[in-house]
């Protein structure tokens, strides 16, 4: 394992120290592991709190700031944060207008946020939870853990964050978050496995010409193993897999996120994006807005995910609204 770390046991603390040093616009509570905006919003507003295991940077700490999150709770690497963090975060940022928890659908995240919501309610906070579950690689049924939350988290946080910034009430912000999630689907392909620092070796092994199709963001293997193919074919497979699940038809507009999983250079992500856009154009689907880069990563995993969010005027307007966070900025 080759990593720029001091000790597998201290990666989270050490990274938080770096975030604190790099971002005076953020307040990093290293003891409680809570990242908030250094400058509070002026008036009362619905607060957005998210969190999850670390190793997905810039998610979530990189999205704290005006127009997006009010607080983030980073857990240990690939491990859900604990309820105490979420409670501390909620209490730190609640202005009386209530708190929305944005939760990626993983068993641990769901349960820890559930306990946090109970504790917050006991302390008199109004909390709503938006569950993100966009990964079409996973079969969704009441008999399973359900779809994983991946790339759509960025869109939920951005769009619901914009609405909150405008002073919308708690239930509206939460409902919009749910609407964005419902309009979103993602699918990912990995070229290499991620190495969790504490584990010291890759989560799975791939041969030099193998890819893992349908991976999540926690280093877990995917749906199946295939041969590496040209970017054009991989992009086509990802687009078609999403379209098979998502009701998108000619004339629809989407926001498209081609997301790097951590170890893939930007040049390759642009190649993939070009192929994705061409494929969607072939279906008559317009990419109204896009993001290309590392937004929801899986440590050093090489590969990409595609998220398609069906968009309409109001959604696009909120997507375009100003945002000022370390990882997403718009004037």
């Amino acid at each position: 394992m080759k990593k720029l770390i001091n000790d597998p046991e201290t990666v989270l603390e050490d990274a938080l120290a770096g975030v604190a040093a790099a971002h005076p616009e953020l307040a990093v509570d290293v003891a409680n592991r809570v990242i908030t905006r250094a400058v509070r919003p002026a008036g009362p507003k619905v607060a957005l709190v998210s969190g999850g295991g670390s190793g997905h940077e810039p998610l979530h700490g990189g999205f704290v700031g005006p127009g997006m999150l009010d607080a983030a709770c980073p857990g240990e690497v690939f491990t859900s944060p604990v309820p105490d963090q979420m409670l501390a975060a909620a209490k730190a940022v609640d202005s009386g207008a209530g708190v929305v928890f944005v939760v990626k659908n993983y068993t641990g995240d769901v349960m820890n946020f559930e306990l946090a919501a109970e504790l917050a309610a006991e302390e008199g906070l109004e909390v709503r939870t938006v569950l993100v579950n966009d990964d079409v690689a996973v079969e969704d049924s009441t008999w399973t853990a359900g779809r994983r939350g991946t790339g759509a988290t960025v869109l939920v946080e951005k769009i619901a964050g914009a609405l909150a910034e405008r002073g919308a009430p708690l239930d509206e912000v939460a409902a919009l978050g749910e609407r964005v999630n419902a309009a979103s689907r993602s699918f990912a392909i990995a070229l290499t496995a991620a190495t969790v620092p504490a584990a010291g070796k890759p989560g799975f092994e791939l041969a030099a010409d193998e890819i893992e199709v349908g991976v999540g963001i926690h280093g877990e293997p995917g749906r199946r193993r295939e041969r590496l193919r040209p970017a054009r074919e991989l992009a086509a497979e990802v687009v078609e897999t999403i379209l098979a699940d998502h009701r998108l038809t000619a004339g629809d507009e989407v926001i498209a996120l081609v997301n790097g999983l951590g170890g893939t250079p930007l040049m390759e992500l642009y190649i993939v994006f070009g192929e994705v856009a061409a494929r969607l154009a072939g279906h008559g689907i317009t990419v109204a807005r896009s993001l290309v880069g590392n937004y929801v990563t899986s440590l050093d995993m090489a590969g990409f995910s595609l998220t398609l969010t069906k968009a309409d005027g109001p959604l696009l307007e909120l997507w375009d609204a100003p945002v000022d966070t370390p990882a997403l900025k718009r004037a």
Partner: protein
Amino acid sequence: MDVDTRLAEDWVRAIAAAVEREHERLTELDSAIGDGDHGSNLRRGFAAVLVALDSPDSPDAPAPDGGPGALLTRTGSTLISKVGGASGPLYGKAFRAIGAALPPPGQPSADAAGLGEALAAGLRAVRDLGRAAPGDKTIVDAWTPALDAYREAVAAGAGLPEATAAAAGGAERGALDTVPLEARKGRASYLGPRSVGHQDPGATSTALLFRALAEATAAREAARGGSDNP
């Protein structure tokens, strides 16, 4: 012999020792079908539990005269606060439920049947929070046969040492029996059929937990010279 504060503390310490000994194996099992952190998760949690036990001034320390119930409730809270992931809330809630089910100080402490009820409350807490059914390849698949074996032993007249030994055996069998199962809850479920052929890490740590209970009870019994078997 009944469930006093000392036994509760011995149990928790025995779990911590087992986790310290076995965390690599747990992590390895979790690497195969999860995300490779189950061992470190529990290790972090039980290390914090030990710190709390050993520093009575810490905010996490159990109230000194709260009895076994308070000690286990506090253990559960520490796990919730420190572990994270899936296993943190599940084991945390379980220990809180066990603690809450034990009689408060002042009342006679639990006997074998009473501990059985507490262990059942622990399983209920796991199932309420995690919504897993037996066969889903989770903690539930070790805890359920552990409880069944415990109850059977108690029904057959066993005292704490025999009943907890039976429970440990049940949990270990249950953990082994997860190997052929296809996971339907937790991270392993994302693997679908690929999860078959691997032992569930959470069920395995549950087996450690019941084995620790049996050991703590047996050690206590040995110290007492096996004087008051029922």
